[in-house]
């Protein structure tokens, strides 16, 4: 177990230029004392300013990774930097600039939402007490909890609890927001609101690292994604790269299945599959219109032609070997 050093204030920034990565890990590994390998040799590079989706099915190691990033859990091996500061030594420098939601919200049940936020703020010794009222008010406003601020936390609905958790993560000016499954337990409306919030926060220049086991819930807001499977990183790229790199197919409807198949094969397309009245192949680099022209030129009766981009969902099922839960 790695010790969490307490001498954070004087830690030097890393050699990496600060504008480079909000999160960078090298070989981060966690084996729990029970022997469970929760995270295995993880190399993450989260560009500053990105909305980084951290995806993977339940139990794939997302929360454990986030706990390591924040210095809550000591890695068995590897190292990482947060906002260019080495962790866990640099916790006192890095963490005040990081807001987090870790495995669901947690507050004192008998205190009001407002009192809970005051307590969070009091724990941050870099937070200015003279501005705490405004900052807390602004955070409550942002998540739409102003009216319910005086209610006891235990009387909050699941969605309100989640929102209070997000408010607590935004009490100060943050350079990085780490949100672990922020849409868990929210209804579709609440999920949409979280997405809107993430977009707004990102628009202000804050890097957002958001984990989910439900791809569809965050796909629309992410600029980058990483996919975990059983503790290992199976993909990491910008969302366009991921889409493009993964077998877009062309599908031709035709009665002349055999001719169409030979045309596509002659063009050098991979994975040509002929079926009754339908032929498909991986599109590769060729333009669909030139394929169509070639077919027509060879006398194939083309009744329909479609380019099929796989949904990200399909890509992830490929990568993770299992589907994402449909409804949580």
């Amino acid at each position, binding site marked *: *177990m*790695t*010790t*969490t050093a*307490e001498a*954070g*204030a*004087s830690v*030097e*920034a890393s050699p990496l230029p*600060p504008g480079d990565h909000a999160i960078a890990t090298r070989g981060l590994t966690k084996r*729990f004392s029970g022997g469970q390998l929760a995270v295995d040799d993880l190399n993450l590079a989260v560009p500053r300013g990105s909305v980084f989706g951290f995806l993977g099915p339940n139990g794939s190691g997302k929360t454990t990774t986030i*706990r390591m990033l*924040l*210095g*809550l*859990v*000591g890695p068995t091996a590897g190292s990482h930097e947060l906002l260019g500061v080495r962790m866990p030594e640099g*916790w*006192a*420098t890095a*963490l*005040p*600039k*990081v807001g*987090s939601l*870790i*495995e*669901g919200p*947690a*507050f*004192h*049940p*008998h*205190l009001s939402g407002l009192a809970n936020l*005051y*307590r*969070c703020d*009091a*724990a*941050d*010794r*870099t*937070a*200015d*007490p003279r501005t705490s009222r405004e900052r807390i008010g602004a955070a409550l406003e942002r998540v739409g909890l102003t009216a319910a601020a005086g209610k006891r936390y235990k009387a909050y609905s699941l969605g309100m609890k989640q929102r209070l958790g997000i408010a*607590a993560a935004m009490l*100060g*000016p943050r*350079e990085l927001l780490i949100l672990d499954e922020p849409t868990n337990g929210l209804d579709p409306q609440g999920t949409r609101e979280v997405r809107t919030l993430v977009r707004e926060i990102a628009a202000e220049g804050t890097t957002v690292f958001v984990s989910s086991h439900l791809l569809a819930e965050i796909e629309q807001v992410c600029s980058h994604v990483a996919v975990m499977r059983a503790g290992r990183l199976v993909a990491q790229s910008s969302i366009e790269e991921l889409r493009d790199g993964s077998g877009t197919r062309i599908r031709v409807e035709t009665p002349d299945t055999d001719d169409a198949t030979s045309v596509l094969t002659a063009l050098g397309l991979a994975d040509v599959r002929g079926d009754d009245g339908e032929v498909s192949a991986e599109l590769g680099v060729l333009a669909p219109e030139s394929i169509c022209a070639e077919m027509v030129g060879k006398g194939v009766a083309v009744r329909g032609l479609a380019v099929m981009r796989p949904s990200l969902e399909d890509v992830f099922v490929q990568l993770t070997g299992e589907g994402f839960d449909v409804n949580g």
Partner: protein
Amino acid sequence: MSTAELTLAPRRVAGIGLRLFRSEVGLTFRRRRNQALLVLLGAVPVLVGIALRLTAKPGNNDGPNLINQVAGNGVFLSVGALFFVLPLILPLAIAVVSGDSIAGEASTGTLRYLLAVPAGRTRLLMVKYATSVTFCVASVATIAATALVTGFILFPVGPVTLLSGSTVSLAAGLGRLGLIGLYVAACVACLAAIGLAISTMTDSPIAAITATAVLPVTCEVIDAVPQLSAVHPYLFTHWWFSYDDLLRDPMVTQNVTRGLLTFLAYTLIFGSVAWARFTTKDITC
């Protein structure tokens, strides 16, 4: 912190954590359970006072020492009440607060957020201990205060006759009482350090509270077994009742000093255990 970082984040210079301490004290004293404990502790002198008032017969000097002393002077009710709560009720109250300190935050999940804020592990531990000590002082003060009020109402009050037979003024007697209060607070502050250490070892507050509460009772049992006399001086509870010596003239400080040193040693050892455990612990809840 580099200058670049300072300009990046317009933050004040980090404080030492008084704000967190104030928040923590507020949380502790506003909590119903802890308020109930203080009420219970405050009720003990009232009950003891009434019982003594009903049983004591003025002029009868063959009864137990304490009864006669209280009957003769209400100031002694404080001493009597502390004597009454020290074996069980007071340690129980301290066990509840100190055992809950870290384990309670772990069980509600708020510990991970305090550390992610970041509160700092060492600082959080110190704030938690300072809060437990505050609760120790408040507990003893509550007992002493209600005992004084009850004593003044139910019994005659005047110059204080000490255990050694000489008499000092009421003010000097109250001064002695203050010293006794501080000594008893030190007794339980040492227990609070043990409770803090136990609290870092588990995520279950009930387990931590129970273990902390059972410990002084176990020590008192061992302290009562003559065959184990060799270890008696090393038991922290062995010195708990040495405050008697503060009621003699001149004050006998030998045992009290030995007691305070024992408490200090326990506090340092268990404080270090708590620190070593808590600063390296994986926070997985």
